[in-house]
C-alpha cells in the first residue's frame, strides 16, 4: 500500500457514515465553532429531517453525493459522441470531422464512438463507470446561451423559478415546492412588494449551514443550486476564504467576530433587504471558512491533471474526504462556444474534451483511493449542442440536442437512447429524443431518493439511468 493511502486512512476517520452518525452531525456542527448561532443548530436539525424520509435501498449508500459538471458554452455533441457510421456526418463537416479510424469505439455500440482525446472517458466506460444519454434536449429549443442555460438550471422551459437542485434542497429541508428565488430578487412581484410573512414563524430565510447541502466551486453560485430557502456556498480558492486583517493586530479579532456574526434584527433590517442578505452571508462565511479551509488543505492522494476542472474536482474530492455533509457539488468547465477554429481530432474542442475526460477519470481514481466511489455520482451536461453543419469559420453555431454523461458505479453503464438522426432534422438541427428532465428525475428519484414529481412539477420518467440495486 503506498504511504499516501495510509495518510488517507489517518485523515479520514470516518468511512461512509451511517444515518445514525449523520444525525449526530448536529453535534459536530455545534462544536465546529464556539459561538454557533442557534439557527445553525436548527438547520442541522433540518438536515436530520432531510434524511428522515429516506428509505435505505440495499447497495445505495445513505450519504450519497451528486457532482454536477457544467460544460458551459454549448458542447458540440456530434464531435464528442461521434456518429462515424453516418455519412451525413462527414458531409456536413468536411473541415472539422473526426475520421472513423480515430474514433474511440465503445463496446455495445454500433456506428458511434467517442472523440479520440477522451481516453479517460473510455477507461471509465470500459470499467462500467460511465453512461452516455444520447439526444437529450427539450421542446422548442432556445439558442441563447443564457436562456438555454437557465432552462437547464431551472428545469423549466420558461427558464423561471428556482434552480432544480435548490428546489431539491428546499423540498428536503423545508417542504417547499417550486419557488421563485432564482430570479435573485426579493419577491416575484418585484422589489416594491414586501414579503408579508416577514416574521410568520415559518423557517426563517437563513439558508446556509457550515456544512451546506450544496457547494459550488467558482466565482458565483449557479442558478441550479439556488433554492428559495437554501443557498449554496461558493468559493474559488480556499486561501482567500478568511479575513487577513485579523493578523494585523490581535485586538481586531474580537470586534471583527462580533460584527461579522450579527444577525439581522427584525424591525431594524427588513428581512428582504440587501442588508439582511449581506448579514446572513457574512455569518455563513465565518462558520464555513474554518471547516472548508481545513478540508481543502488536505491534498488528494492521487494525481489530478493540470487545468481548472482538475483542480476543482481535486477540491471536491478533499471535501468529500473530510466528511462534509454536502450532498451536491457543482463545478464548471469550458467555454465550449466553438464558433470558429473548433478543430477536429486536435485543437480547441479536443483540448476541452481531453481535460473533461481526464479530470473525471482522476476524480474517480481518487474516490477509489478514498474508498468513496460508491457514494458519488457525477452528471455532466451542456446547455445545448451545436448545429449539424459546420459554419464558414471552421466552427459550429448554437444547436439543439446533445449527449449527457453520467459517472459512478451506481449509474447504469453504457449507452442510453438512440443517436439522433442526421437526416430527419429540424431546420438543420438535431431533434431531441430524451427530455433532460427525465434524466434529472431518474437521478432525483433513484439516487437522491427524492420526489422528482414534486421537485420538477411533472412526471418526466422516460429514462432510467441509476441501477436499482
Amino acid at each position, binding site marked *: 500500500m503506498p504511504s499516501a493511502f495510509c495518510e488517507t486512512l489517518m485523515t479520514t476517520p470516518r468511512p461512509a457514515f451511517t444515518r445514525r452518525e449523520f444525525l449526530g452531525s448536529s453535534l459536530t456542527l455545534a462544536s465546529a465553532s464556539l459561538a454557533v448561532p442557534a439557527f445553525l443548530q436548527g438547520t442541522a436539525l433540518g438536515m436530520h429531517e432531510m434524511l428522515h424520509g429516506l428509505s435505505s435501498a440495499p447497495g445505495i449508500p445513505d450519504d450519497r453525493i451528486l457532482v454536477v459538471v457544467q460544460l458551459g458554452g454549448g458542447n458540440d455533441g456530434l464531435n464528442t459522441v461521434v456518429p462515424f457510421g453516418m455519412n451525413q456526418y462527414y458531409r456536413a463537416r468536411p473541415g472539422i470531422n473526426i475520421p472513423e479510424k480515430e474514433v474511440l469505439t465503445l463496446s455495445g455500440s454500433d456506428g458511434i464512438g467517442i472523440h479520440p482525446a477522451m481516453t479517460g472517458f473510455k477507461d471509465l466506460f470500459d470499467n462500467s463507470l460511465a453512461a452516455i444519454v444520447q439526444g437529450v434536449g427539450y421542446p422548442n429549443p432556445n439558442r*441563447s*446561451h*443564457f*436562456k438555454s442555460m437557465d432552462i437547464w438550471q431551472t428545469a423549466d422551459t420558461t*427558464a*423561471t423559478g428556482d434552480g432544480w437542485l435548490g428546489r431539491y434542497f428546499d423540498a428536503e429541508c423545508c417542504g417547499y415546492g417550486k419557488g421563485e428565488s432564482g*430570479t*435573485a*430578487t426579493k419577491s*416575484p*412581484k*418585484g*422589489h*416594491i*412588494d*414586501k414579503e408579508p410573512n416577514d416574521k410568520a414563524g415559518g423557517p426563517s430565510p437563513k439558508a*446556509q449551514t457550515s456544512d451546506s447541502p450544496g457547494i459550488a466551486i467558482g*466565482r*458565483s*453560485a449557479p442558478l441550479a443550486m439556488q433554492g428559495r430557502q437554501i443557498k449554496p*456556498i*461558493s*468559493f*474559488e*480558492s480556499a*486561501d*482567500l*476564504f*478568511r*479575513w*487577513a*486583517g485579523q493578523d*494585523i*493586530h490581535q*485586538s*481586531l479579532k474580537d*470586534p*471583527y467576530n*462580533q*460584527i*461579522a456574526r*450579527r444577525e439581522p434584527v427584525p424591525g*431594524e*433590517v427588513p428581512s428582504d433587504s*440587501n*442588508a439582511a*442578505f*449581506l*448579514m446572513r*452571508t*457574512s455569518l*455563513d*462565511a465565518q462558520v464555513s*471558512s474554518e471547516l472548508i479551509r481545513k478540508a481543502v488543505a488536505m491534498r488528494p492522494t492521487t494525481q489530478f491533471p493540470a487545468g481548472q476542472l482538475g483542480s476543482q474536482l481535486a477540491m471536491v474530492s478533499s471535501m468529500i474526504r473530510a466528511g462534509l455533509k454536502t450532498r451536491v457539488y457543482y463545478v464548471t468547465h469550458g467555454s465550449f462556444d466553438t*464558433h*470558429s477554429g473548433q478543430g477536429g481530432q486536435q485543437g480547441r474542442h479536443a483540448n476541452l474534451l481531453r481535460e473533461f475526460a481526464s479530470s473525471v477519470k482522476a476524480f474517480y481514481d481518487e474516490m477509489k483511493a478514498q474508498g468513496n466511489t460508491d457514494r458519488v455520482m457525477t452528471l455532466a451536461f451542456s446547455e445545448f449542442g451545436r448545429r449539424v453543419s459546420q*459554419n*464558414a*469559420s471552421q466552427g459550429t*453555431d448554437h444547436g439543439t440536442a446533445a449527449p449527457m454523461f453520467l459517472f459512478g458505479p451506481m449509474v447504469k453503464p453504457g449507452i442510453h437512447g438512440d443517436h439522433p438522426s442526421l437526416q430527419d432534422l429540424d431546420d438543420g438541427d438535431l431533434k431531441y429524443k430524451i427530455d433532460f428532465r427525465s434524466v434529472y428525475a431518474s437521478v432525483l428519484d433513484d439516487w437522491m431518493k427524492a420526489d422528482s414529481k414534486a421537485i420538477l412539477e411533472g412526471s418526466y420518467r422516460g429514462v432510467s439511468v441509476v441501477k436499482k440495486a
Partner: protein
Amino acid sequence: MTTQPTSPATTDKDTPRPGKASASMTAIRPERFGYEQARHLLWRAGFGGTPAQIQTLAAWGPERSVDYLLDYDKVNADPIKGDLFDRDIMSPLSQEDREAYRKAQRAQDEDALAKFRAERQNRERSDRAQMTEIQKWWLKRMIETPRPLEEKMTLFWHGILATNYRTIENSYHMYLQNQMLRRNAVGNFGTMLFELIRDPAMIKYLDNDESRKNRPNENLAREIMELFALGVGNYTEKDIKEGARALTGYTFRDDDFFYDQQNHDNGEKSILGKKAPLDGDGFVKAILETRACSAYIARRVYTFFVAELPPMERLPDRDLDPTTRTVLSSLSGTLLAGKYDLKPMLRKLFLSEHFYDQRFMGDQIKSPVVLVVGAMRSLNTPVRDLGILNDALDLMGQNIFFPPSVKGWEGGRSWINTSTLFVRQNILTFLLTGKKPVGYDATADSTKYDPSGLLSEFAKADPSASTDPGRVVDYMMKLTLGRTPPSAKETLANFARSRGGAITPDVMTALLLIITTMPEYQLC
C-alpha cells in the same frame, strides 16, 4: 468656495419610511436635499465622496449638484491620447509576410512555419500584457477622474454592450471600444448603436467579420436585439435572421470599420415591421423606432442607478407594481422625447424624489469596481498596486474588459457569496494598511494611510466631538455606511475606548479596518 460645514447628525432629513416607494418623478425640493441625499447622489452617480465633497453638494442643493455631475464636459479632465498604447501589436501581417507565410505552407517548410508561430505567440503575449496595462489605466482613471459620472456611465455601457478581450485578442480594439463608450456615455443612445455596429471589437466579438452574404452570422443581430436594445419578447427569430442579413458586410480592416460591399446582402428585408433593402443603419433605425427600445434602456438605467428589477422576460413592465411602472414610463418617455439623448433622462432621474426614496438609499450592493474605486476616492487611501487591485476585481467577479459573457455582469446579489465577501474585506485591508492579500510577496506596501483628514470637517463643526470615541464612531459610520447599526456602533465605540480613548490615526485606521469588513459597507 465656502460652504457651511454641517454635521451629518444634524442634517438627517426626517423622511418617513413609507411602505411603498414614492412614485413622484417631480424634482426633490432643495430643503429635502441634505448630507444623506448628497452622499447618495455621489455614490450612485459616481464612486462616493469625501466628507468635503458631500458637504459641498449638500450646500449646493440638488439642481446645481446634478448639473455639475452631468455636464461634466465643463470640467477639465486628462484628454485621452491616441498614442497611449501601441496600436500595432496585433496588426495583420504585411503583404510581404503573408506571402512568405503562404510560401512556407506550400513548401511545408517547418522551420519557417515554426518561426511564424513563435512570432505570433510573442505578439499575443505582448498584447495580453498591454491589455493588463489598459485595465490598470482605466482603473486609475476611475480613481482619479474629476468627472465621476463619465467613468460610471462608461462602466454602465461596458456592462451592457459587453465585449470580452479573450475573444478579441486585440487590446487596442478594446481600448478603442472603451473610448467609443466614453464618447457616448451620456450622449445619444442611437448614435452609440450606429457606432457600435462599426466597432471592430464588437464586430469581432459577435462574429460579424465572419458573416457572409450567403451565410449570414446571426450573433450580432441577435445580441443587439436580445441584450443591447430591445429585450426578449420584443422581436422574433425572423427579425434576427433578417437583421443578420442587413448587417452582412459590416466588418473591419486593421483598426477601422470596413464596409465590404461584396459581402453585403442588398435584398429586401423585413425587420420589426419595416420592409426595405435595409442595411446595418436601417436595422438600427428599425430598432430605434420601436417603443420597446426606450423602455429597455430605461429599465437598464433604473436597475443600475436605483434598484434591481428582475429581467424583463421574467417580469415584463406591465406586471410591475404601479409605482415602478410609472417611473419607468416617465424615464422612457423622456428618453424618447429627447430622441434618445441620455442626459435629460438621467437629469430627471437624479433630481426626482423617487431616486432619494428611503427604500433605495443604501440598499444597492456595490459592484467590485465601485467598492474599490469608491473606497479610494471617499476615504482618500493611497492608490497602492494597481495590479493587485485589478486581480482582486477579477476575484470579486468584475474583471474589467473581460465580462463573463455578452450579457455583461449580472450585478446585485450575484456579486456576493461567502468567498467574494472575504476578497472584499481583504482588498479593503490592503488599501488601508498595505498588507497584501494572500498570494503576493509578503512585504507590505509601506505607504502609510493617513485617515486624519476624514475628521477635519467633523472637527471644524464641533471640535469637542472629535475627541469623543462614541461620537467619532457615529460620525465615521454615517460617512462610510450611511447608517449606524446600534450593536456594531457599541462594539466599535468599546474598541476605541479600549485603545485608550484617544482618536489617533492608528485608532482611526483600525476602526476603518473593521467598518470596511461590515456587511453594510458592501452597500451604497
